[in-house]
């Protein structure tokens, strides 16, 4: 129950200031003069504005809308019938207060009882001292709550991206559906290479063909292939669309569009390859790769970069380099890290992009390129043995996964 404060009593007698302002406004519009006429002018102005009754134009006060009745004034007159929302406003304006006796009465009703929840009246009156607070079974396990959580594999992806950005790498992205041109041709992979077979990569039924880039680049790539691989390069094959088969498809796109030199770049994207899905194979997976471009980049730097990745990402203590082969890099190298159980485990493949690749794209300086077997790294990080769990379809597993 509530009763009027001194201020409330005053307004009940004289009317709320905002109402008084409206009345005065019938005769006087000048702001300064009104200030002299209406008591509690600032309060009046604030509430009249808030209610959308008036607006100020220069030194004049303009009536926007005249209310037919004012519920707040009615509430002040009859507190017992007032709606809660008006009572709350009156409380806030300090025009009413709770009746002390009522609070005490409520608080006293708890005395001598054993209670679970402490009622606010007990705190307001200090009578909490006279009630008994029931003991809980503190050992009881609370009700299970499932927090919102990040998907564990997604979290690992984001962590690696963040780490690379910290190391000064810029992120690259490209379309999931690529032309064979960017996926293979621009990477100096000959069109009759067995890796471009029907069984090794996907092709599209719909849409079937895309567009080739600038004629200058296409001609240069064609020339490079025909000269080095000794076959007739087919433009139509290069236009064929396919789901991106490896992350490296993105690199020539960036190299061809004029990038900052020196620079460090990475991409971590979904790639696609036909396979039968099992514990070690997915048809859709993430690959991490990138390159460092700079006038003085060399094999020594490439080995240094790979070693750093092995330490940063693989937690490696011992690494070993193996000579390797990619059609698009020379020299080429693979880095393996020592695993206590498995022996040498391949971590990354890398190399210096061939001139036959970089020159048609207009790049004159060395580009050291690398790619990391990302899903295997993720499996190690998450402690899963089945690659399918990375894209887990098991809600309980996701809900209960320990936060990394």
């Amino acid at each position, binding site marked *: 129950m509530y009763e009027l404060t001194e201020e409330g009593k005053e307004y009940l007698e004289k009317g709320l200031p905002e109402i008084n302002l409206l009345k005065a406004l019938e005769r006087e519009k000048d702001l300064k003069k009104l200030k002299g006429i209406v008591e509690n002018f600032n309060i009046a102005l604030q509430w009249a504005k808030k209610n959308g009754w008036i607006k100020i134009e220069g030194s004049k006060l303009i009536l926007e809308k005249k209310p037919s009745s004012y519920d707040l004034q009615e509430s002040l007159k009859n507190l017992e019938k007032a709606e809660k929302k008006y009572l709350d406003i009156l409380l806030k304006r300090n025009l009413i207060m709770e009746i002390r006796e009522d609070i005490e009465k409520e608080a006293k009703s708890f005395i001598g009882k054993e209670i679970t929840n402490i009622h606010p009246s007990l705190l307001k009156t200090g009578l909490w001292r006279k009630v008994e607070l029931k003991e809980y079974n503190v050992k009881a396990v609370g009700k299970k709550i499932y*927090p*919102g959580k990040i998907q564990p594999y997604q979290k690992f992806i984001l962590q690696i991206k963040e780490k690379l950005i910290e190391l000064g790498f810029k992120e690259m992205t490209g379309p999931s559906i690529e032309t064979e041109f960017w996926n293979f041709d621009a990477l100096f992979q000959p069109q009759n290479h*067995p890796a471009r077979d029907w069984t090794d990569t996907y092709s*599209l039924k719909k849409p079937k063909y895309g567009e080739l880039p600038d004629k200058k680049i296409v001609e240069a790539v064609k020339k490079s292939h025909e000269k080095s691989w000794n076959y007739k390069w087919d433009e139509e094959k290069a236009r064929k669309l396919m789901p991106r088969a490896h992350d490296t498809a993105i690199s020539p796109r960036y190299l061809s569009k004029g990038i900052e030199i020196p620079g460090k770049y990475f991409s971590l994207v979904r790639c696609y390859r036909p396979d039968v899905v099992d514990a070690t194979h997915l*048809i859709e997976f993430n690959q991490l790769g990138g390159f460092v471009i700079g006038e003085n980049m060399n094999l020594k730097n490439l080995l240094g970069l790979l*070693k750093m990745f092995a330490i940063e990402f693989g937690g490696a203590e011992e690494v070993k380099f193996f000579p390797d082969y990619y059609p698009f890099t020379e020299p080429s190298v693979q880095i393996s890290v020592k695993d206590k159980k498995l022996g040498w485990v391949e971590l990354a493949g890398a190399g210096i992009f061939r001139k036959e690749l970089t020159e048609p794209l207009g790049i004159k300086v060395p580009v050291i390129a690398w790619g990391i077997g990302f899903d295997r790294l993720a499996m190690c990080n998450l402690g899963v043995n089945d690659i399918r769990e990375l894209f887990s379809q098991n809600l*309980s597993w996701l809900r209960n996964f320990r936060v990394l």
Partner: protein
Amino acid sequence: MVKELQGVIMPTIEFSLKDLERLLGKKIDLEELKNEGILFVKGEIDEERNGKLKVDIKDTNRPDLWSIEGVTRELKGHYRIEEGLPKFKIQKSGLTVIVDKKVENVRPKTVCAVVKKLKLDDEAIKQMIQLQEKVCQTFGRNRDMAAIGVYDYDKIKGPIKYTTFKPNELKFEPLGLKRKMNLKEILTKHPKGKEYGYLLRDKKEYPIFIDSAKNVLSMPPIINSNYTGKVDENTKNVFIEVSGHEINHISVALNVIVTALKERGGKLYSVDVKYGNKTVTTPDLTPKKARMNMENCRKILGMDISAKEMLKLLRQSRFDAKLKGKEIEVSYVPYRNDIMDERDVMEDIAISFGYNNIEPEEPKIYTKGEGTKKERLSNKIREICIGLGIQEVLNFTLSSKEDLLERMRIKDDIVEIENPVSSSWCVFRNSLIPNCLRFLSYNKHVEYPQKIFEIGDVIKIDEGKETKTRDVRNLAILITGIKIGYEEISSLLNSLMENLKVEYKIEEMRNEKFIEGRCASVFVDKKLIGEIGEIHPEILENFGLEMPVVSLELNLEGL
């Protein structure tokens, strides 16, 4: 980089340690071989059991390394048993192969050789067949670019004719069969004919090697004859032909085979291949030359390496190397096809030096790292969703037509794979909702309510784009449970937008996916960015779901 793609075709060779020691003339320290020696031939020991080794040779452009004989030749350089350019003596066999003009439109080229005085034991024959297969498969692009035939020379009466016959014009006994078949039958009935017949598809006549006694040697690139084309431990002398489309390419294959047989003690003899008036004498093992600038080499390797050291390392890699001013001129045997540029020579210097003897040095380039706008926005949204108590899920972007279209009761133009392995993964998702509903269907017995969200790309057809498709970053939220209704999803939408400080408008709409009167379109700046609603019960039924589901899907780029 894409090791898996290379892995499909990476040659694996199997041999016994004893055979390697016999060819090398040296006892092998297995640990050294594993840790250093095998790296010299870009190899990695995959398996080792009872003295048998399985080695992956990583270079798919070096067929000369795909046999134990070729590996031995390089290892001799590494162990300094033999250095510099390997020498081969070729005598004249007097045999002629006449190439008929008729082969021009079928399989136009061949190069040939004779190898005598072979002492082939079981192991050697196994190795020869293994090498022949690897070369045909990988280097020969599955016999298209190069197919190899090996024959018992003593059963052949020269000259040999390389010509064509009509499908029904000729019969012979194909290898492994005791019965004569005509050419058509071989292509349709013999296992090798079925496997490789497509290479002769649409041809009116088929290529044939036939000798002057009218004995068929083979029908390339399909099968040898049983009579001349059978090689066993009693065979002393062999005739070898490689057929294909391009002389340079098939010459490499021939050179690889004959030099491998030479390591087995064989003596090499040349054959005159007559193309009209032109005679090509093969095998031709005249060394090829290439040049490398030493300063460029130091720059690319990042190593201060002397001219003398370079020469030594190159000789160990079986090159002859000479100083020519600022350059080095190397000579190499033309079984190598991989030297296109000076870089290829530099790599051999580095391998010969030993990758693990090079001191790694991190690149000293200082650049500012940066993520993409799309990912930054995604992270912001992810944070809000997690704060709202929703579990993130990650699904495939591939899906089935049934899930994307039929079960969702919609028709749409979607991106479709031509050669899917399974119909469950044959189209790209055009919306995040179907795979999320599929997710919920796997979790029907898990405690409710279930709240999941996914942030990911959907692929839309877009004729205006270079790739005729566009990746669109979407957010989907799905809530399911016994008392779940439209209000749950609309309050989530509101909370999301308020936290992003984005003003949005909701408009009523009708859509096959949702219950009528329980769905709406979401607009930001008058642009449609998504929809919310309660999934239609028929769709729930289609996915086998037994609780109401409300969903939201927004295009993040519109925010």
